[in-house]
């Protein structure tokens, strides 16, 4: 088949709308408003180091919480009957089909000082607690929004682990924790790494969750970037530099989780 040429429109599109824009970000990051070469933007973005580290920290906490919640859940679901599995996966995906702004807004109403949670706690004689506009609320928002991204890849690898393997391990004298360490964990590792990336990347780059649940009282990297492009602090050069820092963080995260193993394996997990 000589049909390689049909990929041409895509390659052209990708160069025009992915490669060139990314090159533009790099160019803006290394130039000043006059267009001259400078490293000033990166020096200035170092001023925001606390914001950057805070974003990484909060996203890491959210990713860890998602992993801890999702791992047993994915395993439990994968041991169910086929019909029950399908229903549960559908139930987990259903909230994802609602826009994440609406989901985050839902938590805004719940966490407010006179919101439902404080009301209920009030009946018990507790509170009111200051929950909205805290870092905890932002982490909660990340966990709530991206938990399905952790569950689904974990489920898709665990459903392939046969029960007989787990049984064989325990028959051969493995304790539950040994089975976990030597059988389940190694076999589910591809799901773990995909899940970590799929939760960490949107968490570390969000600017909406922090603004809606953090009340703008503290910023994440995403807020910083957004401010430089659309906000009052208009400075695309600085924004481009911070964007590059963000991409660098994500590349490190990916290198750590070593996602680039086998493209066909990845494909199966993402879909």
């Amino acid at each position, binding site marked *: *088949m000589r*049909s*390689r040429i*049909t*990929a041409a*429109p*895509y390659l052209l*599109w*990708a160069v025009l*709308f*992915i490669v060139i*824009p990314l090159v*533009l*970000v790099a160019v*803006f990051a290394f130039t000043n408003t006059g267009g001259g070469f400078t490293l000033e933007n990166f020096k200035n973005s170092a001023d925001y180091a606390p914001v950057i580290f805070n974003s990484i920290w909060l996203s890491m906490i959210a990713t860890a919480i998602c992993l801890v919640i999702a791992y*047993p*859940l994915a395993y439990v679901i994968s041991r169910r009957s086929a019909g029950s599995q*399908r229903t549960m996966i*559908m*139930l987990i995906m259903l*909230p994802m*089909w*609602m*826009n*994440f*702004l*609406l*989901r*985050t807004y*839902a*938590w*805004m*109403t*719940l966490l*407010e000082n006179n919101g439902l949670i404080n*009301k209920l706690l009030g009946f018990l004689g507790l509170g009111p607690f200051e929950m909205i506009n805290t870092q905890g609320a932002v982490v909660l928002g990340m966990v*709530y929004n991206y*938990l399905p991204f952790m569950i689904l890849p974990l489920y898709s690898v665990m459903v392939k682990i046969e029960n007989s393997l787990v049984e064989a391990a325990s028959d051969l004298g493995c304790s539950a924790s040994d089975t976990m360490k030597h059988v389940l964990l190694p076999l589910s590792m591809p799901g773990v790494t995909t899940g970590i*990336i799929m939760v960490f990347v949107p968490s570390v*780059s969000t*600017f*909406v969750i922090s603004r*809606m649940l953090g009340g703008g009282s503290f910023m994440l990297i*995403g807020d910083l970037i957004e401010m430089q*492009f*659309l906000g009052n602090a208009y400075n*695309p050069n600085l*924004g*481009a530099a911070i*964007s590059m820092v*963000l*991409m660098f963080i*994500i590349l490190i995260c*990916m290198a750590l989780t070593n996602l*680039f193993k086998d493209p066909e394996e*990845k*494909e*199966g997990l*993402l*879909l």
Partner: protein
Amino acid sequence: MKNKKTGAGWLSNSYIALIMIFLYAPILVLMIYSFNESKSRSGWAGFSLHWYRELFKNDAIISALLVTLFVAFVSAILATVIGTLAAIGIQSMKSSSKTAIMNFTYVPVVSPEIVMGVSLMLLFVLLRMESGLITLVLAHVTFNLPYVILSVMPKLRQMDKHLFDAAMDLGCTPGMAFRKVMLPEIMPGIITGFLMALTFSLDDFNVSYFVSGDKFQTLPILIYSMTRRRVSPEINALSAIIFVIVLLVLIIVNVQDARREKQLRRKEAALNE
């Protein structure tokens, strides 16, 4: 032994239930409040459809809905055509360039949406393109393309390579061979890709936010501006409607899938007899 099993069963059931409550409780609260007469979220002032009436009177919401649907359908169709052609082309490449292009295809999938948003914004500013419907469609096609390619590729791989050649040997023109042989084989992948593109496009906020401009708001952008005003009960009503629509669509799709599976099994059984 049996006792232990039911004990574990009870534990896993309650764990699943707990997660489901976590996932659904906020949405349900939102839906219940959509029927609240009062604007305040702290009290219940009685059942009312007031906010639903307000929602449908709101011209901004209706026009945002139209913009969203237009952008979603146009960009999903464009992405499906370009992406399907791309998958066919990539599949027939040498393995080294195939791997290179497929790895490149993952770049927009794994890179943060905000970076794609600002990078496209820079491009459009530089090209002096006014933000609006066109920039929205261009941006949406860009982030939809990988998903179409990634859904069509597995179907192409499953297809017997020689089928296409056989069709040509038997006198098909390449166009005919494509339509009669290849297209039916990869159709499920194309449909999946189209539907994914459509949903991603309907749902997108992070990229659209940077390329939409002031004149054309998509629904997610409008929702965002509504949440900036602290209290806007129309959002509750909107959430309830969207949730019910999504639920209905998923139920219909699942029932049809189950029915198709049943038919298939019956056919198999009949053939085996």
